[in-house]
Every structure is written in C-alpha cells, then in structure tokens.
C-alpha cells in the first residue's frame, strides 16, 4: 500500500473537516432536535422539512445555491465581507459551513428520534426532584438519549467524510484547503491512476465498515445489557 504526500494531506484534511463539522453539528442540532421533539407549534412541520431538504436534493443543487449565497453578491458573502473575512467559496471555512448544512439532517434526526422516544416523563421527574432545565438536560436527558447522540455523531462524521458533490461545487480542488479524499480519488481516476484510487477507496470502505460495525455492536450490547454503556 502506497500513499503519496498529497494522499496523506487529503486524508488529514478530511479528518479535520469531519471532526470540526461533527462538533459544530452536535451544538447546532441539539436545540433544533429538542424544539422539534417538544414543541406543539405548527411551524415544526416547516422546520422539519427545511432540515430534511439536504436528504433529497442533489448535492450539486445544494452546492450551487451555497456558491451563490456565499459569493460576493450573495447574502452570506455580503455578510462575511462586511466582517472583513472576504468570501467563503474555495476556502476551508466555506467547506465547513457547507458541510454543516449538508449533514444537518443526519445529526438532527437521530437526536430528535431519541428525544421523542424518551418522552416528557424523565424531564418531569427531574423537575419534581428539584432539577432545573439545564441540570436536567445534562444529567437526565443527555445520558438517557446517549445512543441517539452517538448515532448522530457517527452519521454526521461519516456523511461529511463521504461528501463529494457539494465540495466540488463550492470548494473546488485546492491542496490542503479543499482537496478532501473523495476529490483526491476523483483526480486519480481522471488521471487513470487506478492503483492509487484503489488504495484510497479501499481505505474508505474499510473505515466506513469498521465505524458502522462498532456502532451497531454497541447498540446491540446496549439493548441486551440494560444499564449504561460507554
């Protein structure tokens, strides 16, 4: 197995991107999921639909609109320029923003499902024992919904690792900036370097399989053992 320097740099960039995106997503998605699972507002339908859009849209459509929005004349672009940050397309930051939006449903939905399954009762019990809302979230809701959060983190991470279309639309192919593994593989194939494409693709398959195996293994153990895990 031979990995070139540019392969290694693509792997490193991909891991950095996926980790950062996952952390941001857990922070962003949790309040959305909490609201969606608890609120009786009629706007939950609209918000659910918006959150789920990246699931059904072709990545190129999403990437195209993000490119427009983040461009010099788009609302996001105007905003970042007014902050003196320039524009986001073809930068690592731009890739992070796009990936957060692209992977949002993969993180919101497992958390939302876990919170819905949990129901209101644990929070009510905690309140009657004197726990305030924040105390109750960290000491009751979070530990009880931990499998949902773990699934969300794993799906958010792997989905970001696997994205291609959105990256191509707004990130292009800049080494150490936006050239992630999937783009690197595409380059190898274009250049007819099938050997190097095989190596990277094989690594991706192995990585995805091991992560999912670990996730389902933990879920199974959790179902059988009861009590807490991890």
């Amino acid at each position: 197995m031979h990995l070139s320097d540019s392969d290694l740099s693509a792997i490193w960039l991909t891991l950095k991107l996926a980790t950062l995106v996952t952390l941001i997503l857990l922070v962003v998605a949790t309040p959305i999921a909490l609201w969606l699972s608890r609120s009786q507002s009629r706007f939950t339908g609209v918000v659910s639909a918006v959150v789920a859009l990246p699931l059904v849209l072709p990545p190129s459509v999403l990437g195209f609109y993000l490119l427009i929005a983040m461009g010099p004349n788009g609302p996001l672009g105007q905003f970042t320029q007014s902050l003196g940050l320039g524009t986001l397309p073809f930068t690592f930051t731009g890739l992070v923003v796009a990936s957060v939006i692209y992977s949002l449903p993969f993180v919101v939905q497992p958390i939302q499902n876990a919170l819905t399954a949990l129901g209101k009762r644990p929070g009510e019990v905690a309140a009657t024992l004197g726990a305030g809302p924040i105390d109750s979230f960290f000491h009751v809701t979070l530990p009880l919904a931990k499998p949902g959060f773990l699934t969300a983190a794993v799906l958010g991470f792997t989905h970001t690792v696997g994205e291609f279309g959105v990256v191509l639309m707004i990130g292009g192919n800049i080494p150490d900036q936006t050239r992630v593994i999937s783009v690197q593989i595409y380059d190898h194939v274009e250049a007819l370097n099938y050997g190097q494409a095989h190596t990277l693709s094989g690594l991706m398959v192995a990585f995805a399989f091991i992560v999912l195996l670990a996730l389902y293994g933990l879920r199974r153990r959790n179902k059988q053992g009861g009590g807490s895990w991890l």
Partner: protein
Amino acid sequence: MAVNSADRIRARVLLQRSDFTLNADLHLPGTGFSVLFGHSGSGKTTLLRCIAGLEKAAAEIALGDEVWQSDTVFIPVHQRPLAYVFQEASLFDHLSAQGNLDFAVKRARQPVSQSEKSAIIELLGIGHTLQRYPANLSGGERQRVAIARALLSKPRLLLMDEPLAALDEQRKQEILPYLESLRSEFSLPVIYVTHSVNEVARLADHLIAMENGNVMAQGSLEETLADPDFPLQLGEEAGVVLDTYVTALDPQWHLAQFEVGNGFGIWIRDSGHRKGDMARLRILARDVSLAVSPQSETSIQNALPCTVEAITSDNHDALALVKVRVGDAPLLSRMTRRSVASLQLEPGKVMWAQVKSAGLV
C-alpha cells in the same frame, strides 16, 4: 421531617380543554393523606399535575403562606418544594437505585443526613436493591425506590399519582404497608390519587371525591364516606371506615373488641392484637342491619344503640342507605325500602345497629 403541620394546602384550578373542564377548589389539611378519589377520567390526575405545575392552568395554589401560583405568580416545578411519585415506575434507567436516590439527595430542599437516608432506605425495605439498575428490579421494588427517592428530596408536600395502579395485586399488598408506615411515621402532607376504594379505606385521612372534573365532596374520611349522599356509586363497597383501638381481648374465643363511637365496642376475630393497639375498621353498609330492640336470639353478637340521621335511596329502586350514629361514630346500613317503611324509620328515631362483621384495613 421538618414540616410545619400548620401548613394548609389550598388549590383552586380551572382548566378548559376541548372535551373536558376541570374546576376544583380544594382546602386540604397540612398533614396526613388527602386522597383524590374518582373514576378514570374524573380529572384527579390532571388536578394533581396542576398542583405540581406540570400542567399549565389558571390556578391559585398555596402551601401555607407560600404562594406557588396565582394570576401573577408562577413558581416553576423545580422550585416548588414538592415531590411526585408517578403511576408507572419513573426511575432514571441510566442510574442505579443508589444513583437515583443520590440524584434526589443532591438537589434536596434541605440537607439530608446519613441517618435520615438510612432510615428512609430501611422504611421502604430497599437496602438490597441499591447496587442494581432499574431494569433489574421488580415492579414493586422500582416503585419503592421511587417513593424513597421522593422522600429524600425533602419535600414539604408529597404528590402520589396512583402509585399502585400499574402493579398486580400481590405487589400492591407488598407496598401498602410501606405507605401505611409513611402515613404513621411522617407528618409530611400527601395528596394521593386513586380509584381504589380499598386504598381509600387504608390510607385516607381526608377524602376528596371527584367526577367529570368537579369536586363532588370533600372532608374527613369518616364523615365523607358515611354521607349517604356520597356522590360516587360504591355499590357493594359502600360503608364507613373508623379509626379505633383495641379495648378488650377474649382469648377463649379468639376475639378482640374495638372501640366504636366513644364508649361502645364491637367484637371481631382477633388478628394478634394487644390491648390499646390502633387499627382501622371498615364496616360495609351491607353488614349492618337495624332493629327496634336488641336481639338476643341471633348469631349477630354486636348490637349498638344508635340514632337514625338520614335515609337516601340507593342505586337500585328497592334499596335504601340509612345513616345512623353510634355515640359519635357514623355507620351506614343498607336495607330494602320496604324495611324502611315497615320499621317507620325517620331521622331522630332510636334503633339498634347490628353489625354482622367488620374488616380490619
């Protein structure tokens, strides 16, 4: 427990839903078990949730001088000094039994000493469960841990929503004694929701009868149950419950005499009591008959002089419920309306009540 027994509980709640209106005004004593009793759908659980603040309603709720809720005030649930035992086991699955108890101790309204903790664990008999997770506890054990957890949060008011309803008969019998010791050993006021007449008879000091979201009757258990106009149809279970004590024993015939109505007594079989023991006696209306004079040639040994107070029709056209008073204790007697007519019963008439049997509860 540090509880001011002068605390009185007041709850006025108005809640409108599309298919249901709850309209209740409660004045409850600051100690003992107040039981909200009614059929399912009568609004008793909703009322309890409103008192806790778990349900938003237009309400005035106060414990003693402390206003929890009014037009201008809403103290959130976690700041109300209450604890709540839910119908189904509501332990936190991610914590052991010990972890569940510690959760309450850490957030208790007052510091909990080690000896108080041990006393509560012993009172509920859960010492052997502490290291286990809820998934590995029986239904009865889970509910006992939940009750201990509620007590350890040092509430000034304990709310219990049908804590036995989800358990089978055997488990109920297992937990009832713990609730009775809770009643006798703590002055903590408890509001207890149930639809079981048996639990009312065993636990209630104060009774609130509910129907269709309205309070139909409230008062001391003795007087409320003895009211022949008691609004809920109890059928065969109509009768009175009296708090009493053992006045004499008859070892030859294995009988014990219980005081009734200040100076009178009835003999029932001895269940290993000693003289002076406190007990609750339940006397069903169907086990009480009335006679103009004391009968000697009958198998019924308990005959007590009484005065008729009220006569009402019962659930069947042929039947009537007659309320009489022995000394200061009320009794109910069920008979046919023909008997009422032929005995010429009317309020104020002096009769003899014959009590065929009475149950200890």
